[in-house]
């Protein structure tokens, strides 16, 4: 589905992404892990058009999408969430969701003046959809709250919720789990699986929670220092010496995992 070919992204002299190449299969849920500062987010930003790569190519279904602006990629079915939540802070939570779908009739000025009736109908449908999403994320009671007033975790949920407002082809999730309650996170994992199975969405997931990765992802790609370090099933990755050294460590958490 998406082929990343030898992408480099340099900030000044610093090579945040340094020749990363990877392939994301259609219909897969690919996990992307790696130490802090490995270049995962930067790679997302390059693929999703927020940063121009220093060099390299990204293709989607065979089509070259390198350097296309995000709004065009959105219309091609590529969605992303942000690691540091990017809510529309002065708008209500519901509005945050309702603004997402593209090609709304009322988004053209002339239509906004002339096609009042049609817009009202569309809005009704959107509102229903948004409320469903909110229900799912267990934040229905916040529908009319300003998004800027949400708690840290709630903002992350809203990030995720936005991707559920439209039919996407491929969704990039950048640490949706950080700061989200684990019980809810597992529910989210279920939803991701469902979207993947039922609607055929492709997912790419950055996450530091191995439970979450383990539940969802195959394959898992580990990055370090801007390059792809290893790729395989989670078990293969976990067994990789380099990965253990750079990323997983042998601490308490993994000991526990090994036990459990």
């Amino acid at each position, binding site marked *: 589905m998406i082929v990343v070919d030898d992408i480099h992204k340099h900030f000044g002299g610093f090579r945040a992404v340094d020749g990363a190449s990877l392939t994301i299969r259609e219909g897969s849920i690919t996990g992307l892990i790696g130490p802090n500062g490995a270049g995962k987010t930067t790679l997302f930003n390059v693929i*999703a058009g*927020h940063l121009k790569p220093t060099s390299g190519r990204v293709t989607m279904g065979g089509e070259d999408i390198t350097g296309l*602006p*995000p*709004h065009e990629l*959105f*219309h091609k079915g590529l*969605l*992303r969430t*942000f690691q540091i939540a*990017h*809510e*529309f*802070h*002065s*708008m209500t939570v519901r*509005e*945050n969701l*309702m*603004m*997402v779908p*593209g090609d*709304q*009739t*009322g*988004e*053209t*000025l002339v*239509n*906004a*003046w002339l096609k*009042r009736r049609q*817009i009202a109908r*569309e*809005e009704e449908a959107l509102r229903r959809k948004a409320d469903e999403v909110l229900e799912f994320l267990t934040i229905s009671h916040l529908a009319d709250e300003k998004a800027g007033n949400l708690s840290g975790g709630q903002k992350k949920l809203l990030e995720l919720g*936005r991707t559920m407002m439209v039919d996407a082809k491929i969704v990039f999730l950048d640490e949706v789990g950080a700061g989200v309650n684990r019980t809810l996170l597992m529910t989210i994992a279920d939803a991701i699986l469902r979207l993947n199975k039922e609607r055929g969405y492709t997912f790419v997931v950055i996450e530091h929670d191995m439970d979450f990765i383990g539940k969802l992802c195959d394959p898992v790609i580990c990055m370090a220092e801007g390059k792809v370090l290893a790729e395989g099933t989670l078990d293969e990755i976990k067994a990789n010496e380099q990965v253990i050294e750079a990323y997983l460590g042998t601490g308490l958490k993994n000991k526990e995992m090994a036990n459990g």
Partner: protein
Amino acid sequence: MKMRDAGLFALVAALLVLTGMMQSWNLALQILNMGLISAIMALGVNLQWGFAGLFNVGVMGFVALGGLAVALTAMPPVGDAWRAGGLGVFSALIVAAVAITLAVVIWRKRLPARGWLVAAVLLVGFILYRELFDPARDAIEAVNPALQGNLGGLGLPVLFSWPVGGLLAAGAAWLIGKTALGLRSDYLAIATLGIAEIILAVMKNEDWLARGVKNVIGVPSPLPTAVELQENAGFAARFADPITASTIGVKLGYAVLFAVVLIALIVLMQLALKSPWGRMVRAIRDNETAAEAMGKDVTRRHLQIFILGSAICGLAGAMMTTLDGQLVPGTYQPLRFTFLIWVMVIVGGSGNNFGAVLGGMLIWFLWVQVEPVGAWLIGALTSGLPEGAFKDHLMDSAAYMRLFTMGLVMLLVLRFSPRGLIPER
């Protein structure tokens, strides 16, 4: 909440009525008319800032372009000048346009050494332009310089110039937007400010266009003038005091014209704001990166809004020049035509159309009325002082009370409603 808004509008109305009763209705209407125009300008700025977060500090330039439109549309053409240099000027302008387009095209083509090519094209273009332009300009400016010396206008009815003013401003805004909208916050601000100064420099110095600093006076009026009414026997006979009747009548006429424009604009803007379009625009203001990721073309939206807002300012500028009956480039000062409008928007409440309108009316009222208030204040303060140099000094300083009082009032209003009188939602 709604009650409070209505109350505030009632307050402004009451201030005007009070002016009418205590001072004169002519004055009240005069303030109302300029207040309506100010409200329209504030609407334009509010569209850009309040809704889209675009920091336009070049309002003055667009207002001035509106004024220019009046001169170019409504003034009679100067036949001799056209014959003397019309062709030359226009062929020069076309040469310039071609050269610039060519340069842009070459730049876009990413040819090797494009920098030199572009420079060469521009240089040749410039020389050619000056060759064609200079003699034509001199010829035009030589035609009856004391009174004309310019090409004149199209001689159309003056009301046509209002939409033309909007279009002219929109055209300029398009150009600016294409180049400068990538800038953020205060950087965009100073860029627009600079562009406004450039527009003004052109208007002041290109005499062939609209006489430059020599001013255009005697702009035709869309309504019968007070003098015409007074000279009209039927009118004069109908009223006991034809002077007052005619001056008030004309002002009422303008008030109606302006109010129609203002209301139409408010309706359109409210409709837009309450629609998905408005939601999208607010989302862009809140967080451009996220909006972009959600499929919204931020650049296009910004351009659209920048053009619309500027066009509204241009329209208001044309209306104002019509009301003044003259085009005086020297009048356009950033303090009055940019920053005062900003004060209106912020004091009224940015992000809220009604706030902007209220701010426009209220601040204009104060701008005019703080002068007598300030003088009165000084009088009251000094009444207890003994006669002498100090008192004389204070009395002489009464004029400065105008800005002083204005500042004080602004600070007070903002103190009690830091987010504006009618805040967003």
